[in-house]
Structures are given as C-alpha cells and as structure tokens.
C-alpha cells in the first residue's frame, strides 16, 4: 500500500503540472527566428548577377529561375528560362512541385530585392530548402551584365577583365541568338521534398 500512495502522489503531482501546460505545437522543421536571422546576416543565399550570368551561360541544369513579380511584369521581360510565380501565389499547391523540392536550386528574383527576399523568408520559414535570391534583382542585372559599367582608364586589369566578361555575357543575352536560348532552357522534373508524415505503427 505504501508504494501505491507514493506512486499516486507522484502521478497526481506530475499530472497537475501537465494539466497546466499550454498546448504546444512543435514543428520539428520550422526554423527558429534567431536561426533565420543568422542565415540572413551571412547572406549565403544571395547569388550575384555575375554568378547568375555564369550559371546561365554554362547552361547549368540545376537551377530554376523564379520570377516573383506579377504576370504583367513577367510578360514584359523575364530572364531566360524563368518561370513566373507571383509572390502571393508562392504557396499555392499547383506550384508546389517547383518550390517544394530538393533537386534544384530555386533562384527568386524581382526588380530589386524586396519581393525576392520576402519569397526567400517565406519559403525558408516553412522549411523548403535550396532557395536563393538574385542579389540586386533585375535592376542590378541590367546595370552589371546587360549594360556593364565602362571602367575608368586608370582601373586595374582585373576590372577590365571583368568588364570584358560582362560585355560578352551581355552579347549572349541580348544578341541575335538570345531568343533561341529561351527554348533550350532545360527544366528538370523536380524531386519533391520529403514532407512531415506520420509514422506507421501499431500492430498494422
């Protein structure tokens, strides 16, 4: 009987504590706010215009450009091979195969960095991986690649080399053959990310 009383007291005490605990909803996949801030500070998810030009010229198949502006802006101009997912539709199920996958790098871009950063934070928070943004957006793209800045005559040779590279890239993207590249852009079938699913168990 002694054990019974001890056990009963312990159980009732612990039970009372448990009864007062709030209903916590854990998401094992959700990033905590401070982790998110750290990532943002490190800026590892930003791809520069030069890097992107390089990837596109080399026809890197592992990237997917996602234009997060609205469809009107997209129709007016978009980067070669980019698909259009307006920011407000980013979480729609029809786009899930493109956004929620682990095989390709998604590079969000917009005119500047506001919309693309928002897209990145949104998807990072939910737990989607492999998401990047184009640093500086289309504005930077234009001023760096399409219309690179002509260096001053006293500039060091590296700056001239960079200019030459950018000029060549500009040719690639705006020259007479630029339109063909659009059709050749490869979009691989995405591999979906493993979602949080309940474990099978019991005697089944």
């Amino acid at each position, binding site marked *: *009987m002694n054990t019974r009383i001890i056990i009963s007291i312990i159980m*009732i005490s612990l*039970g009372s*504590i448990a*009864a007062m605990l709030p209903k916590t909803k*854990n998401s094992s996949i959700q990033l905590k706010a401070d982790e998110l801030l750290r990532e943002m500070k490190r800026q590892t998810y930003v791809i520069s215009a030069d890097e992107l030009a390089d990837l596109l010229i080399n026809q890197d198949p592992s990237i997917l450009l996602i234009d997060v502006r609205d469809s009107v802006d997209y129709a007016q101009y978009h980067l070669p091979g980019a698909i259009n997912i307006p920011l407000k539709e980013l979480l729609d199920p029809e786009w899930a195969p493109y956004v929620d996958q682990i095989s390709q790098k998604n590079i969000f871009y917009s005119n500047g960095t506001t919309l693309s950063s928002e897209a990145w934070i949104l998807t990072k928070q939910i737990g989607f991986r492999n998401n990047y943004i184009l640093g500086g957006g289309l504005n930077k793209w234009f001023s760096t690649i399409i219309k690179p800045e002509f260096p001053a005559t006293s500039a060091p040779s590296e700056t001239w080399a960079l200019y030459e590279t950018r000029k060549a890239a500009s040719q690639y993207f705006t020259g007479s053959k630029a339109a063909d590249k659009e059709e050749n852009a490869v979009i691989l079938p995405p591999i979906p990310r493993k979602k949080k699913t309940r474990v099978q168990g*019991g005697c089944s």
Partner: protein
Amino acid sequence: MGPIVPLFNVSNEINLLFAFIIGLGFGFVLEQAGFSSSRKLAGMFYGYDITVLKVFFTAAITGMLGLIFLNFMGLIDLDIIYINEYYITSSIIGGIIMGAGFIIGGFCPGTSFTAAAIGKIDAMWFVAGSIAGIFLFGEIYPLLESIYMSNYEGAVKISNILGIRDGYFALLLIIVASIMFWIGELAEKKFKREDISKEI
C-alpha cells in the same frame, strides 16, 4: 528533437535494431512483472491479483505524461508519432472478441511470447492458436471487409473529442487510476487466494 528515426532519416537497419532493443526491454519488464503466468493475468478478473491493473495503467500514464512533457520541452514532435486510427465498429467488435480470448486463454499476444520464452507450454499453444486465428481472419476477410473498414474516424485523440488539453485529460485519468488502485487493493484483500498467489 525526436522522434529520431523519421526526422534524421535513419536507415531501416538501425530502426530494426532499435526495435530489437526496445523488445528486449519490453520482454524483460513483462516477465519481471510476472506476466509470464496466465494465472496471474487472470487474477485481475477474479480479484486475487490486480497486477495487470497496476502495471497497465501505470505504464500508460507514464507514457502519456512522458509524451506531454517531452513535447512541452520541444524534444518530440507529436504530429509525427503514430496515433491509432479509429474505426468504430471493428475496434469495438475486435475488442470484444479479444476480451473473450483473454479470459479463456489467459494471455494476450505480448505476454504469450514472454511466457513461451520461459517455457510455459500453454503459452506456446496460445501463440499457435493466435497464428490459426489470424489465418482464419485472412481467409474469411472478404466477408468481413465491410465491417473492417466501416466508420473510419481518422486518428482522433480523446483530448480533441472532449475539447480539453492533453495534460488535463492525463490528470483526469490519473485521478481515476488512483481510485481504481485503491479499490483494487481492497478487492485483493477481500478475494485473497493464498493458495494461488503462492504458486504464481
């Protein structure tokens, strides 16, 4: 953060190793509790030995509180762990048939393996019987399929049905269990059977 196997993509082999180790603990504790004896198990229903009540409810409560506290501390994700799926008809009818099997056979599958492990021949026959029973179920399944699949409610939790917090329900269950332990121990004194208790 748990559970470990699903979240860290642990290989199937390690998962099976965990299963084995957990089984070792399970079997050891069952046998230590004396559940390798059908007469001890049956004692629950005749009053002379309420070990089943004590072990069963203490274990369920420990597990329940454990999950609640681990969840609160952010160490386990309750959305991922297995929750039994509720099929109203088959749960009840299956339970009734199992209840009959329990009082006639004096074992349940887990305890029958434990008892067979220490040499109880009746437990081995129970295992044989359960193999036959499962085979029989499989053979007449087409007749039972509609019953088996009817009234599916999903993996519902009691706390959701009653609209109260998990911890609150746990406390209620603990209070009920404490009362049951008290009444049970009184019953043990009243229905005492020294002759049986000596042997098991």
